[in-house]
């Protein structure tokens, strides 16, 4: 393609990316480097129907001048990134120096919101992503070998978990695992413990969140693999059959190598998505057991006093996290590209 043609070809999408991805990113980086001005607090008397009480309020006139001068707030550099709500450098150093053994150090780290969120987020990402790929592949192979007549309905039903809005899908599962729900009661009967509650136990809650994660994303892997299976060279498959290859051998030596690039693609997308796990935590009301970086952003913005700088810093850290997570896959793709 000529350079000029190429330029016109990518211009609309580049403009859109600049507008909707690059500028917002710059905006959150700038926001995360600033904090609010020092608030001028004055003592006041508040009178309500319950009587008068001594209280405090922000002196708006005194802070107005500060705000006019620097509408972004005070420049704070990396302070927000390093504070207890984020990387907690001071607290980590303290735990490192004062901890009695690794166990103690670990538990002190998990008491810090960022590391607590990272522990769940990374566990979720590294368990759900491979399971999604495996289940997606199995479903794709199964559907592909089903009779032509029933394939349409089969594909539709296999895709349902992905079509359902995440918030609604996870709410449905949340009700099913309630102590009086169908799965909750079944688990109680299986374990022989009528007091068993999925929602009260942290390990069970983690497992349920991951079950939801796999249930929701396996259809994506399935549909990509299913499309890939349609392009497998039938000549190669037939010659493998003539050579006496079993069904397993055909999948192992013909189909899998053919689908490998697709696996890289699914892994990329899934690592990115799973690192941003959010909806099931809200729907499962699971914040007492599991938090994620996305949940932390939501929590910062959802309170009565919005913590914009804190949320911005967490967003930047999320972007960095995704970049680190994807770097091995990206480096590999780049090398493969260079080899050709």
């Amino acid at each position, binding site marked *: 393609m000529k350079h000029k043609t190429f330029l016109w070809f990518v211009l609309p999408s580049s403009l859109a990316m600049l507008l909707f991805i690059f500028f917002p990113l710059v905006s959150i980086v700038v926001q995360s480097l600033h*904090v*609010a*001005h*020092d*608030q001028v*607090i*004055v*003592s*006041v*008397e*508040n*009178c*309500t*129907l*319950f*009587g008068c*009480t001594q*209280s*405090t*309020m*922000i002196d*708006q006139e005194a802070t*107005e001048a500060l705000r006019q001068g620097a509408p972004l*707030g*005070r420049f704070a550099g990396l302070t*927000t990134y390093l*504070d*207890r*709500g984020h990387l907690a450098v001071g*607290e980590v150093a303290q735990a490192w120096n004062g901890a009695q053994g690794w166990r103690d150090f670990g538990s002190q780290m998990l*008491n810090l*919101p960022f590391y607590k969120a990272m522990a769940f987020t990374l566990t979720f990402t590294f368990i759900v992503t491979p399971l999604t790929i495996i289940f997606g592949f199995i479903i794709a192979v199964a559907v592909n070998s089903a009779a032509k007549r029933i394939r349409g309905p089969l594909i539709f039903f296999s895709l349902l978990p992905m079509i359902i809005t995440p918030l609604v899908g996870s709410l449905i599962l949340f009700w099913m695992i*309630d*102590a009086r729900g169908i799965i909750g009661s079944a688990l109680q009967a299986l374990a022989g413990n009528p*007091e068993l*509650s999925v*929602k*009260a136990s*942290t390990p069970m809650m983690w497992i349920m969140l991951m079950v939801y994660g796999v249930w929701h994303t396996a259809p994506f892997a399935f549909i990509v693999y299913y499309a890939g299976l349609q392009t497998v060279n039938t000549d190669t498959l037939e010659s493998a059959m003539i050579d006496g290859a079993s069904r397993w051998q055909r999948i192992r030596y013909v189909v899998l190598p053919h689908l490998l690039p697709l696996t890289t693609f699914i892994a990329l997308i899934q690592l990115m998505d799973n690192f941003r796990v959010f909806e099931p935590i809200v729907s*499962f*009301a*699971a*914040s*007492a*057991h599991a938090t994620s970086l996305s949940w932390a952003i939501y*929590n910062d*913005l*959802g*309170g*009565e*006093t*919005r*913590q914009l*700088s*804190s949320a911005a810093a967490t967003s930047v850290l999320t972007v960095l996290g995704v970049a680190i997570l994807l770097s091995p896959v990206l480096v590999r793709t780049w090398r493969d590209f260079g080899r050709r």
Partner: protein
Amino acid sequence: MHMYNKAAIVTAIAVLSGSTAIAGCGVDSGRVSIVGNEFPAIHTVANGAMACADTGVTVTANLTADHQTINVAGMQGNPAEYTSAIVASSSIVALMNEDVIRPLDDLVAEYGQDIPTRQLITINGKVMAVAFMANAQHLVYRKDVLEQIGVEPPKTYEDLLAAAEMIRAQGIMQNPVGGAYAAGWNLAEEFVNMYFGEGGALFTPGTAEVSINNEQGIAALNMMKSLTEYMNPDFLTHDSNATSAEWEAGNVALMNMWGSRTGVLMDAEGSTPEVYENTMVGAPMTVGGGTIPASTLWWDGWTVAKNISDEDAVATFLALKNGVSPSILTDETMGQAVWMIDGYQPAPVNDGVFAAMAMNTTPYPMLPYMGLLHTALGDNLAEFLQGKESAEQALADVEAAYTAAAKEKGFLN
């Protein structure tokens, strides 16, 4: 749901027809746009304001449970999208912090002489809101269950624990205590209640420095933990709605619940006669030998935006004044809240809130940095209740999380 809709429509019709009789509210031009929480009493107020719509006057209302996440943004523009926000004790602070609501003194002097003084919320001597209802959490109990075990309704949390043990021991209910202990806002609110009941103060007086890691804080957490031992094990996921559902299902006999939510528990809907006929309200309970109840007093009221024209401000003031005027009180609306409006006649369902006021319950603090502490409490207390860390550690975590947030918002250096 059907009954409720019907009630709302009847109310709307009653209010609308009432307004034609009154012939307007004295507004002939302007824009009124209300944002507020969504529950029956607020619908009634908004309907009362909407009755002022006329040629040249537009009145719209956006009532949603997510009002807190949109009201500041919706009032920061110039002109502001919302000319009025219906707020409570805590949410007015967010609007004051961002300086988006105007003092009402001039408007009250010119158009609101007939608003009773007790309804006016003054901050630093300026009227910032007009209250229309009071709310508090208090005891709700099952009369039949308490009669069965032969005890009076508990007056203290210690009595409540004793009664809960008897109910469990006699095999009447496995988890007889209810409570909105969902991690987040609800859990934080329950801690604030209990901490005030223990006689604690949240901040070093006159400063934004938190001080809750003390004897009262530990006592409050220990009492909460004792209560959770008699709750459904899923308590950390139960907000007010889920707790009400547990009550209506007949699984709970004793709980601390909002006055504004008890009407729903006592009506014939969503439950069996055994439950709703025996649902009674009591005074808020004290704890640890204290005299101040372990609860907080709340008011709901309306404000007027700062960044709007004076014409719109007058229209908004008059429309909402009509929204909280005695004319909105009908048989339908009377029981929806503890109205602070002349002509209100209390019903038995409102006894709990009145008792809370009579017992000098602490009002929820209207401090600029209270929202940050509430968030920090909601995020850091669950681990103690799960038995994963000590009360001291949980309180230290709250203080550290609050301090980091307060530094970012400029309240602490």
